[in-house]
């Protein structure tokens, strides 16, 4: 048994945020969705360690949290790449060639991997993003982009790749590095 006081799994700012969410709604359970959003915003994904910490530090049941975590698609259960290009593949976007956009983006990412010049991107097809008139629609992390043709997708990938990595991505990378060092 460790004798020293265990440090919190979360940063103090995040702990404050979690506490405020827990007090914000009528029941504690209602805070699960916003709390998971907050954890993901800071760590870039939600690890099972975080889920356990939510129970041990904040009293949210792991079963309840995991039910929610596995039900909703926005929560990332595995460490992601710093940028996610999420292209809507539902009917309206598909009619405008979303498949081509996805294929082009994936090919571009794969090519980067192959050439030893990887881009910090991953590309997914997602269901309707709710801006169907300006298809195909895509999100890069939290930024929405409209009329994402294959050309625009590749342009977006290279533009974002040039930027400084988001804070969450940096934290995710350092957490993972710390974890593998620990093992």
């Amino acid at each position, binding site marked *: 048994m460790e004798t020293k006081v265990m440090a919190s799994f979360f940063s103090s700012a995040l702990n404050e945020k979690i506490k405020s969410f827990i007090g914000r709604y009528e029941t504690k359970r209602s805070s699960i969705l916003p709390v998971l959003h907050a954890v993901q915003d800071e760590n870039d994904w939600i690890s*099972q360690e975080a889920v356990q910490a939510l129970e041990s530090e904040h009293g949210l049941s792991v079963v309840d949290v995991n039910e929610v*975590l596995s039900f909703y698609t926005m929560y990332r*259960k595995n460490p992601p790449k710093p940028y996610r290009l999420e292209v809507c593949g539902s009917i309206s976007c598909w009619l405008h060639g979303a498949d081509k956009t996805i294929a082009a983006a994936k090919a571009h990412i794969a090519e980067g991997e192959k050439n030893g010049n990887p881009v910090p991107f991953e590309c997914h097809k997602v269901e309707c993003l709710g801006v169907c008139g300006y298809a195909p629609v895509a999100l890069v992390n939290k930024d929405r982009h409209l009329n994402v043709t294959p050309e625009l997708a590749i342009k977006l990938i290279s533009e974002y790749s040039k930027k400084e990595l988001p804070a969450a991505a940096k934290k995710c990378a350092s957490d993972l590095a710390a974890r593998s060092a620990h093992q």
Partner: protein
Amino acid sequence: MAYVNVSRDPERNLKNGYLATSLVGMGTTLVTFAKQVFGLEESNTVQWPEVEFQYSERFKGAHFLTKRPDGRVRCTACFLCATNCPAQCITIVAGESPDKGVEKYPVRFEIDILRCVFCGFCEEACPVDAIRMGPEYSMAGLAEQKWVYTKDYLLERDAVKRKVGEKQVSKKDENTKHDTVESSLPGIHTGHSEHGH
């Protein structure tokens, strides 16, 4: 209770006379004998036990257990043969198999061959083609011999291997499992569809 009178009508036998029919019979015997002596006809008699008679492939003789292509026993210990057996001669003790696809297997599988009536219901009942009846019909033995066929014996019939050897491996589709579903945590599957944020 109804019964059948096997003997012919005595009147008819008297009319024809025993002698006449006996002579006809003897004639047939002599003709056949002569043919065989002069090599004009093959003998149907088998020189048992020097020569073994070959029954049809589909002969329902002593049982054997089939194997999967990897050599493990096919039987899943479902007890359907034992349930179906009218002579109650099959004893099975089931156990946990490490195979995640088919987690049950017979630890013991025994057939009390003296009680068996060779009806073939076990074969019929088997849902996985694990038990079959083979061409082995000669099962004579001594009183002190073991008459309960064990699983090992049923699986590895050295004595009759040449007859049932290749048949012992069933070609039926395996119930196999993909590695990805062996995760011990049902909650967290990785990438079950291309949907994902």
